[in-house]
């Protein structure tokens, strides 16, 4: 079964998956392929002639059942830079009962003949459910507390560009792991690529049996950050700060917020990351967040566009080729 490349000169090897629903289950080769192409797009985006025609004629739909500015914007920009037609659909969680029309929505989208669908939904598994009902490729743009694969890819790309590799790096994920899809995707990706992952959080913010995912668990920032190459902070939702999961913001910041005092326990050249949006003074001190020598937070945003370009490119071509067979 021969697959004819769309443009013989620069055609990437076929990506072996129809959708990108999560990092769990991807091989090191799959991840490298996505990161390598992302790297190319990152360079291209910095130069002139950013607007390409790679996905000319393709339709990308961003379907967001949850509020998001940066992820949606990032997908939108990625699609537009590749020359695709991009449509945003935001379904406010209040306008319809959540999820009630998810399968109906899928049927509607099928009728629109989209090529790639990027979906965010407040329920874990909802994107997978949708992917079973649509004809196009689906990218999980975050489903509940399950996965957020493009975030993990952009984090990995950011680290790789700074450190040259992921293997054997010691990475600490700090904060609300229990409710974080970013944490799960990062754990899978970093471990698959040979990095070692620690989590640091109070037990109330850790999901059950997390150590069975192969991570080291710490409840103390100083011990958890010791000798780390990368410190990745996670956002703590406001409603979880007031006595439900942690007693108060000030107590949380005192013991789990990243400041210079705690950061000195990490390696001297340790880098700081945060998926955003940040709660300054809750999980991260402003000075640390804005430290241009240590903080990669803005670079993460930049890499987000490149990663999403790579994902859209590979999946859209996969769908086209599958359709042409």
């Amino acid at each position, binding site marked *: 079964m021969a697959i004819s490349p769309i443009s013989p000169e620069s055609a990437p090897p076929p990506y072996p998956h129809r959708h990108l629903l999560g990092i769990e289950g991807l091989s090191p080769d799959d991840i490298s392929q996505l990161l390598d192409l992302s790297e190319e797009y990152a360079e291209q985006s910095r130069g002139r002639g950013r607007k390409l025609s790679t996905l000319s004629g393709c339709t990308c739909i961003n379907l967001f059942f949850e509020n998001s500015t940066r992820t949606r914007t990032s997908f939108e920009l990625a699609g537009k830079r590749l020359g695709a037609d991009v449509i945003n659909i935001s379904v406010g969680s209040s306008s319809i009962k959540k999820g009630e029309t998810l399968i109906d929505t899928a049927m509607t989208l099928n009728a629109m003949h989209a090529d790639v669908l990027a979906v965010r939904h407040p329920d874990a598994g909802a994107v997978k459910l949708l992917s079973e009902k649509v004809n196009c490729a689906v990218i999980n743009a975050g489903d509940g*507390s*399950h996965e957020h694969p493009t975030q993990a890819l952009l984090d990995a790309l950011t680290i790789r560009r700074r450190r040259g590799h992921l293997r054997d790096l010691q990475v600490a994920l700090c904060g609300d792991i229990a409710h974080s899809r970013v944490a799960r995707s990062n754990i899978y990706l970093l471990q698959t690529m040979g990095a070692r992952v620690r989590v640091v959080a109070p037990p109330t913010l850790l999901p059950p049996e997390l150590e069975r995912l192969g991570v080291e668990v710490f409840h103390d920032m100083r011990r958890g950050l010791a000798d780390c190459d990368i410190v990745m902070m996670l956002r703590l939702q406001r409603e979880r700060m007031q006595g439900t999961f942690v007693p108060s913001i000030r107590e949380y910041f005192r013991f789990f917020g990243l400041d210079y005092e705690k950061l000195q326990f990490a390696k001297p050249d340790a880098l700081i990351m945060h998926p955003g949006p940040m709660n300054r003074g809750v999980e991260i001190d402003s000075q640390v967040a804005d430290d241009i020598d240590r903080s990669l937070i803005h670079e993460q945003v930049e890499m987000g566009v490149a990663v999403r370009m790579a994902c859209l490119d590979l999946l859209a071509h996969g769908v086209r080729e599958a359709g042409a067979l």
Partner: protein
Amino acid sequence: MKRTVYRNARLLDPATGLDAPGGLLAENGIIADLGPGIANGATPEGADVVDCGGAVLSPGLVDIRVQLREPGAEHQEDINSASRAAAAGGVTTMIALPNTEPVIDDVAGIEFVARRAREVKTVKVFTHAAITKDLAGNEMTEFGLLREAGAIAFSDGPVGVSKASVVARALSYATTFGALLMQHPEEPSLVDDGVMNAGELSTRLGLPGIPREAETIMLDRDLTLVEMTGGRYHAAAISTAASVERIRAAKSRGLDVTCDATPPNFALNELSIADYRTFAKLTPPLRSEDDRQAIVEGLKDGTIDLIASDHAPQDQDSKRLPFAQAAPGGIGMETLLPLTLELAHNGHLSLPDALRKVTVVPAERMGLPVGRLAPGAPADLVLFDPGRPWRIDADALRSKSKNSPFDGRLVQGQVLRTVVDGRTIYTAPEM
């Protein structure tokens, strides 16, 4: 006089341990005689003859926990469709849970079910009554009047009564009438927004978990209250290894306590959820393999007295949703027999001991004169081939709802004929 002779059967009465070739004579809906002689003797004049072909003839199954959805949600199930499902599953007596709309918390509700059962006239239908009005967990229902009207036991259905004071008073007051309380032990504040067993899998799937301790804590509390009040108590659908331990200890202290397990909790584990399969979203949730094995052990050593289907019909629209939003529950009456027989096929229980848990034990605990092959007992019978293999096909089941967590499973043991009060209410299509 209507007489039927069932000949050439393997008579199996779990109550007495009888397991022998023979026949059975039913007269006017009552078992008149049974034994090896019936197979060979002359047919009584005017009697119908059923050749059993060597299949097992046993008492019909008694399923003590079934959600009928009538009144209130007849698009999911009704007494007629549930009765047909029961008949096809070899269930001759089913006892409904009171979580209908309206809730069965007064005499009129009991009478409604009884009247509908008479109209449908298939299997025997009884109902439990609510422990608290409107299942709200606060005010007790009229235990005495409801008992007189025919309520079997008292239960708030798939929710446990969460206030200790209410449970203490209900257990205590129920002793006046010798009534049995059946609790689904699950502490709601620990369940919170949980939708599956808490553990590695819930962490991987990013779904909020229900810790095993939610079950243990309410069970511990209830057992303490049983000790305090001298009440009668039945724990519904226990699902954890710790619960088996707690019941074992309570029994050794001499408390009037029994419990049951459901087929999902002894035949499946949480891995059935795989990629968010909502048909495997159940109450209590599917647990780990260690828990499943402990439930099997509890069934073997008798700590777990009986098996109930926990039949909970849900329509497609309630299940084809993201996992957290999907309604919990699975249908189970038509698959109760083969899944119970798995315990025998897998060597955990003898065939009569497996059948005890779905016939005489539930009947006796619920105070019903059914579930045994004995002269004078109602001719409620199931004829089945214990070895015949088949594949569960949810779409072919007779419930209005098709939400079986066992869809596609290969099982052994097929119902050939179901008889209630001497009337054949089901015969397998091949016969």
